[in-house]
């Protein structure tokens, strides 16, 4: 029972401060543990959900193998699913190669905080396959577990990833005394955020010095990150552009959206109180789409709304959003191929560079939106604004390219037709792993330095 522990401030679980196994919590907190086990369930919603499906599927984002060409994300990229699969999924993903670093484990395993403590900076850059994974296994880690968010002795919420604290403080946010409400965002903000690996030691770093908006983060990458030696995640194989890969900025998007600005937290929607054994209430530990639990997740606050209507409203927002995302991606694709053609047509280096600047920015702005997990719901206006900037940048590249290409006598109509061909080939290829190979061909030769 929980009753005994509520006694006083000194209440202790009796667990070791270093506990990292979920199973150790099972007997003390059977309800939360049971709830956690439900993360095994797999069920899809229209735009999200928990089935392990490829992002390249036709109803998702079928042109990603072009857009991420030359990077691991063009090889394999899946819809995310329950926390309980985090280890299995990071282990199996083809993006992990023999060169992958320890940092890739940072948001998957309960062993990480201890490894950082023990190894210091050597953790981040350690070889994933050779060193970091075997070590975490030997420590008996769990996939995203109780100890990631709770102090095992007191069950107080806590932040266990130092990168988060550094990132927040760099923006001038005082982290010394967070409220309970803050913590209900922060525990998620440890992982559901945009990050990059620092150039010197591969440390997981959050680009938040200038703010949480995509344009703030871009500004950071163009200044602070570059000064510290980080220029890109990879060189794009179609356009030769140095590209920034964006990752799951759920926290940043939420904080700048209508709910975040109103003080609503991730946990309010994704961990609503629920009746666990027909009697006791607990915070749901089944992190999933709140559209599956609208009664608990939304109705408490929006009790004056008909829930079906509210769901329809969410669907409206998401549909408008996804259509705009697909369009922005499409313009970005065109920009990549136009730049490819600039390169093969002998356009001057500095014009190519100028076009690539726009391609880079255009890609950043749609990718930071695509990488976000709520199909626009976490910030409908903000995400759309970002997509608009994306289209504008990609078009600026296309315009510049058009000028130079025509000067070189390139037939633009033919170019456009070749782009359609290549898109069709990628779309129709049934083997997801082969799609990326069809994004370049004789007409559009690969541009990545070998």
């Amino acid at each position, binding site marked *: 029972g929980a*009753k005994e522990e509520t006694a006083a401030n000194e209440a202790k679980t009796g667990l070791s401060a270093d506990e990292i196994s979920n199973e150790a919590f099972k007997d003390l907190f059977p309800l939360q543990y049971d709830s956690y086990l439900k993360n095994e369930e797999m069920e899809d919603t229209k735009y999200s959900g928990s089935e392990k499906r490829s992002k390249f599927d036709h109803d998702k984002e079928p042109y990603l193998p072009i857009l991420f060409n030359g990077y691991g994300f063009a090889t394999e990229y899946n819809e995310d699913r329950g926390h309980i699969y985090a280890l299995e999924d990071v282990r199996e993903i083809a993006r992990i190669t023999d060169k992958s670093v320890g940092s890739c484990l940072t948001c998957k395993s309960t062993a990480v905080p201890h490894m950082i403590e023990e190894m210091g900076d050597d953790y981040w850059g350690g070889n994933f396959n050779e060193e970091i994974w075997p070590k975490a296994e030997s420590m008996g880690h769990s996939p995203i577990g109780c100890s990631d968010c709770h102090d095992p002795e007191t069950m107080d919420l806590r932040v266990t990833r130092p990168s988060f604290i550094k990132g927040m403080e760099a923006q001038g946010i005082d982290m010394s005394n967070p409220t*309970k409400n803050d913590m209900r965002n922060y525990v998620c903000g440890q992982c559901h955020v945009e990050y990059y690996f620092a150039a010197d030691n591969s440390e997981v770093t959050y680009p938040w010095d200038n703010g949480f908006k995509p344009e703030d983060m871009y500004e950071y990458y163009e200044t602070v990150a570059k000064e510290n030696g980080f220029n890109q995640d990879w060189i794009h194989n179609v356009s030769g552009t140095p590209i920034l890969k964006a990752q799951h900025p759920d926290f940043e998007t939420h904080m700048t959206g209508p709910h975040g600005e109103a003080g609503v937290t991730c946990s*309010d929607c994704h961990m609503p109180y629920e009746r666990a054994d027909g009697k*006791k209430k607990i915070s749901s530990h089944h992190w999933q789409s709140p559209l599956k639990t609208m009664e608990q997740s939304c109705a*408490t606050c929006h*009790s*004056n709304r008909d829930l079906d209507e509210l769901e329809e409203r969410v669907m409206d927002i998401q549909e408008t959003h996804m259509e705009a995302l697909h369009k922005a991606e499409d313009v970005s694709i065109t920009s990549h191929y136009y730049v490819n053609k600039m390169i093969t047509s002998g356009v001057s280096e500095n014009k190519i560079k100028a076009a690539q600047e726009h391609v880079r920015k255009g890609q950043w702005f749609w990718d930071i939106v695509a990488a976000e997990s709520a199909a626009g719901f976490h910030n409908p206006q903000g995400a759309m604004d970002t997509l608009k900037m994306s289209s504008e940048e990609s078009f600026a590249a296309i315009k510049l390219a058009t000028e130079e290409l025509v000067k070189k006598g390139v037939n633009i109509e033919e170019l456009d037709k070749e782009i359609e061909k290549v898109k069709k080939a990628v779309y129709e290829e049934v083997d997801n792993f082969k799609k990326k190979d069809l994004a370049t061909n004789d007409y559009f030769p690969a541009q990545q330095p070998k």
Partner: protein
Amino acid sequence: MFKRGIRKFLSMDKRMLLFIGVFTGIILSVVTVKGLAYTDSPEFCGSCHIMNNVHDSFANSTHAELSCSDCHLPHDTLINKYTNKAKAGIGHVYYNTLGEDKIPQVLHPTENTQEVVNQNCIDCHQSTLDNVSHDAKDSCSSCHQAIPHGNDFKTEDYFKPAKSGELLENKGGTMNNG
């Protein structure tokens, strides 16, 4: 919470003193157990037309079985209860007579009300709170936005065709939120 909320209670003019006297008088003169119980009841509170809306929303809520004072007055000590009641009551009577032009456009709970009410939620629902850490936000109302008032920001009436002559009937506005 409401920086714009009008804290008039503190800035009442001298006529207030008169009302403190009068209201205390009323309370004292009806100090029979029955009388006091009546002043706790939804009927009594709802008797002021300005209270119509909150009364109606309350009456349709999951908490309709309660009395207003179950939420709106402190229950730690009787003295505390009636001091608060007199204080608030004086305010209400004052506003409904001399202070009409000072009544806020939209009724807001004062900070005191918020504290009192919140404590009452906690007192009644201690078992739920024991069950699950339930204190993430400033107040229960941060999540339970519509308990017990405010469910449906419009009455069902709005979603029916108007009755002819209705507006004429209400030209001076007796129906609108009191």
